[in-house]
């Protein structure tokens, strides 16, 4: 019981540290806030007429449709930023000091993931606030907004797990930073920014099977029409799958690092 309490305190302390670290460095916070907000404005203004295309789902505005995509983008970049910061900690020897201290090893990774989850929560609140300020309705009301927030926050843990695994395996901030374009690829090849039925091949087919499409649809549905059990369950299943993958890869990378030093 005492071990568990110690572990929880370590996770809390490391999580708080990672949040402070992100907000103190413009290089880390800017991809989470500035770029997705700028892109939301540009895409809403530039491609907003797309809602008039036949086959576009009924929405109040393109901004309302785009909110889920922007939350996803911000959350994924938060995962990437968390991975970069973790790799910097490894490069600077901070993680070695944690390994040498009498704390559970899993708490080191979970602390980082707690920080990433908090940034995911921040991203979802940020974009919901922007949406509401600029007139977007949340059709699912408060329960719908809470569902969207919960899905984005847990998705941040899922994506952060993969970022942490790569940081632990490579120990190089530049390698994790190199994944930044991959985040964009994954987003463009999902239905984050446009309905999948209206996308152009081969992006359309890839988006159909991309697990991030299931997550974004699960986040979008409560915003544009209301809570849908099927889409929510599909999103939860996709998030659970990525969390398991991320934690499995992190555990393996952690063992590798402890073995090889």
């Amino acid at each position: 019981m005492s071990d568990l309490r110690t572990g929880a305190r370590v996770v809390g302390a490391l999580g708080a540290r990672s949040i402070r670290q992100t907000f103190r460095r413009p290089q880390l916070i800017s991809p989470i806030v500035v770029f997705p907000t700028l892109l939301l404005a540009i895409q809403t203004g530039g491609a907003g007429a797309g809602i008039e295309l036949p086959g576009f789902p009924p929405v109040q505005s393109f901004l309302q449709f785009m909110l889920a995509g922007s939350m996803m983008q911000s959350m994924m970049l938060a995962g990437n930023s968390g991975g970069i910061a973790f790799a910097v900690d490894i490069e600077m020897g901070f993680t070695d000091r944690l390994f040498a201290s009498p704390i559970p090893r899993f708490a080191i990774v979970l602390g980082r993931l707690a920080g990433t989850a908090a940034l995911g929560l921040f991203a979802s609140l940020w974009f919901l606030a922007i949406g509401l300020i600029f007139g977007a309705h949340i059709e699912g009301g408060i329960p719908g907004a809470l569902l969207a927030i919960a899905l984005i926050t847990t998705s941040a843990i899922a994506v952060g797990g993969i970022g942490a695994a790569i940081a632990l395996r490579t120990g190089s901030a530049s390698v994790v930073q190199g994944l930044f374009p991959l985040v964009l690829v994954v987003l463009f090849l999902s239905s984050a920014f446009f309905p999948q039925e209206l996308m152009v091949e081969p992006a359309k087919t890839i988006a159909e099977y991309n697990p991030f499409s299931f997550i974004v649809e699960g986040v979008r549905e409560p915003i544009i029409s209301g809570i849908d059990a099927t889409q929510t369950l599909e999103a939860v299943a996709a998030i659970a799958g990525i969390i398991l993958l991320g934690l499995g890869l992190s555990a393996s990378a952690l063992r590798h690092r402890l073995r090889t030093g």
Partner: protein
Amino acid sequence: MEAASVTRAPAPAGWRTNLATVAALMARAKNELLRVPGAAIPGVLAPTIFFLGLNGVFGSLIHLPGFDSGSYESFIVPVSMLQGAGFTGAAAGVNLARDYEQGWVDRLLVSPAPRWVLLGGNVLAASARAFIPATFVLAIGFLIGVQWPGLDGLIVCYLMVAAMAAVAACWGSMLALHYKSQSAAPLMQAGMMGLILLTPAYAPLELLQPWLEKVAEFNPVTHVVEAARQGFVGSVTWGETWPGLLAVAGLLGVLGALALREMRRTNA
């Protein structure tokens, strides 16, 4: 006698010396590229991903009434080329901030080279480097069906790309010399991204949302985008070329002057 000749003051730097200094700074940038080829990858990858991604996501916008191009890839390719130029120019600013942090800029500042020559070397190197992402994006574009813009269209497009990289390098250099830290990198990149995309980048002016239409009308880069795009969606005319030339000249004048002011304020 020999000692006197050694201590003699150097002859005043003429235009030949200035050109040689600019060439040396450009050669340094080229060497950096050859020795660390991986450093150029993000600048090439990002506009390529944007090009392919935007084409896959928003390609069906051409079915909207009023869209004046039958091929979205042709419509968007010049924007991605300009985006590559923007990233390359901003990277020149980041590199200058790194050079400042490492003390290299201090050594340049105590040299007898005029400040504008030091800035010019950095800016021209960015212009030359911008041809790499632009050519890569264009090659990918041709592979997926971008229409041939004609030789005149291609020349105008590359001219806009080189000029836009110079504009971005002036912007990046100004911020690098002001903040003297690589931490300003997001501001350099976001500024250029905003400037290039707050234009009819995704759709013609008439199809933009009213607020963006207003912003785009006042954004000088709109003329640059339209000049670069004309060969890909129609024919090249002087009427669409000169506003682009005027816009880049104006941006270069203003941002170049601001960057030079920051450089003059920077003490070794």
